[in-house]
């Protein structure tokens, strides 16, 4: 599950954040996101940073989750077959790489 915080002041959702990422306010309501959303835009990393060099090519997407939060995350599966608007679902939360999604 993906923990998120809905800001009491600006109302925006921040994934995995101790304070609001948009206005800096503390507090707010904690909730678990469903892990479902859609792909807004993406890239395929062909030249990776040294720590992930062996994993390239891989896709990184900008996703909008069903609850309205946005997240930049690794997208597992064939990076050559993605499309804007495609439904996405959370696979796992990796200790190093953070949340990893795949096409639903």
């Amino acid at each position, binding site marked *: 599950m993906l923990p998120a915080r809905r800001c009491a002041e600006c109302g925006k959702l921040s994934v995995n954040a101790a304070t609001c990422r948009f206005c800096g306010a503390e507090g707010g309501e904690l909730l678990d996101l469903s892990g479902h959303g859609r792909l807004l835009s993406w890239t395929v990393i*062909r030249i990776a940073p040294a720590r992930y060099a062996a994993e390239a090519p891989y896709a*990184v997407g900008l996703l909008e989750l069903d609850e309205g939060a946005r997240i930049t995350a690794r997208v597992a599966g064939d990076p050559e077959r993605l499309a804007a608007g495609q439904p996405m679902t959370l696979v796992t939360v990796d200790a190093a790489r953070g949340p990893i999604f795949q096409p639903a």
Partner: protein
Amino acid sequence: MRDVAIIGVGSTPFGKLEGRGLIDIAVAACREALADARVPREKIQALYVGNFIGERLANQGAIAGMTANRLGLGGIPATKTEGACASGGIALRLGVLGIALGLYDFVLAAGAEKMTSASTAEVTAGLATAGDEEAEMRCGLTFPGSFGIITRAHMARYGTTREQIGLVSVKNHGLGAANPKSQFRKPVTLDEVLRSRLIADPLRLFDCPPISDGAAAVVLCPADRAREFHAKPVRVMGTGHATGPATLWEMDDVTTFPATVRAAREAYHAAGIAAADVDVVELHDCFTTAEIVASEDLGFFPRGQGGRAVEEGWSALDGKVAVNPSGGLIAKGHPVGATGCAQVYELVRQLRGEAANQVRNCEIALAHNLGGTGVVSTVTILGTM
């Protein structure tokens, strides 16, 4: 606030500068700027040096003090500024403020970076530290990757074509070919750009700047003393320095950088001009798409029209506004900490009428420097005196 002028500029060539360290190239650019200004080094009262990643890629920190010592500046205060790829623009801004506020009469602002000693994987990882590690980059995103996502969003939202984006590279490589300081001295065709290898889809090799070494420097003084030192001083009409969200997911719209918009608003207001008054601009084309986005954020073209502007020649040397006559970061090279001062080097030479790709009758120039995925930006507006 006092009016500030630029009385000297210097720049090393950009490229692979074999056998010269980070301090060596910073010192070389500063010496050239001091000689250009005909200011004895004893007069300099403060030094600001932009550098992003010397510790990681060149094993060298504390470069401001070391540069001051090597120049023989007599123990003056020296400060390193860091704002990723906007480090040099911040150095210049602090120098301008130091004189405007009356703290100093003569200031040296410089930027330097040494990147070619490291491997591409080390450089890619190092540059990625300008992003927010915990909130975004740890997933494996890179800077070309961030701009790949932005590129696809711009294409989807505005119908910008891959060909229009590629034409930025064609334009800038064509201009860089004639600039003796440029890393790339060869024009490229649109076909070569679109067939170059993919780096971060849909961006390809020729959409990206090279890995570069280089340094640039600027000498500043009060405007009312400028003619004592240079026959063609350049006025600093206004500056802006602003920050913005560091991740793509925090941006309401990834096709615009709020930091650029804010810095430009501040600089235009200070200068008392509008975008339409600018004749020549050096803007932060860290990728082809970044030129399109910045040309919209700075107000030169309407939202979504940056791609069309390149295709129609509006941003060519003889267009509505000449964009990146130096060849930009893409062709001239992008030693990241140096870029902000190197842009001003080019624009001062434009306003003096000494540039390699001279824009005719130019009187007002604008430099735009961007750090990270828009976490910081500086804008500097210059004019003839």
